[in-house]
């Protein structure tokens, strides 16, 4: 059981850290701002979530106590990540950052569709 838990912790950590890295890789290599934004808001958030989950298990394994307060950070991140992303993309739209040529559809410049 303990072994299994330990493996689970290790897995959570590796997976979590892996997702974090993938998010950052996306940030580094995707072609335009709008696409880059997807990477950290999703992958990284989930990655941290996984690591936090690992931490909960880890406390159980090593300290033998039941610790749930990592949930707080996870929940907080899940609540705030979409809003952060929204705020950032709004600023990008406001500054009319160029989107990659492959992009279909057009953003609205001034808060309303159809007015361009």
């Amino acid at each position, binding site marked *: 059981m303990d072994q299994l838990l330990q493996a689970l912790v290790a897995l959570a*950590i590796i997976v979590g850290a892996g997702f974090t890295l993938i998010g950052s890789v996306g940030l580094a290599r995707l072609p335009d701002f709008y696409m880059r934004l997807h990477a950290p808001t999703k992958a990284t958030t989930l990655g941290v979530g996984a690591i936090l989950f690992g931490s909960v298990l880890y406390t159980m394994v090593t300290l033998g106590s039941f610790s749930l307060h990592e949930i707080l950070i996870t929940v907080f991140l899940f609540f705030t990540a979409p809003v952060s992303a929204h705020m950032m993309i709004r600023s990008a739209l406001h500054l009319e950052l160029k989107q990659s040529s492959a992009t279909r559809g057009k953003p609205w410049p001034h808060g309303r569709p159809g007015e361009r």
Partner: protein
Amino acid sequence: MITWAINIGLALTSLALLLNLYRLVIGPDTPNRILALDTMYINAIATIILLGMKLQSTLLFEAALLIAVMGFVGTVAMSKFLTRGDIIE
């Protein structure tokens, strides 16, 4: 096994932080940089939690929570600065 995983995890997050730094430096514009910083905040949470596990200490938990809060507020404020200039109006 866990120690090994934690070290790997730290290496990965460190690498992630370096990639964020790359984006921060090359930009090419402010939203991209804000995005890089925001990602850095989240990666920092991962790093802190991993560090806490490595040191078998729970003392860093509140620091991690605080990074989450402060990162959010910072990102929001910077983004609003770009769209409105005046962030408290």
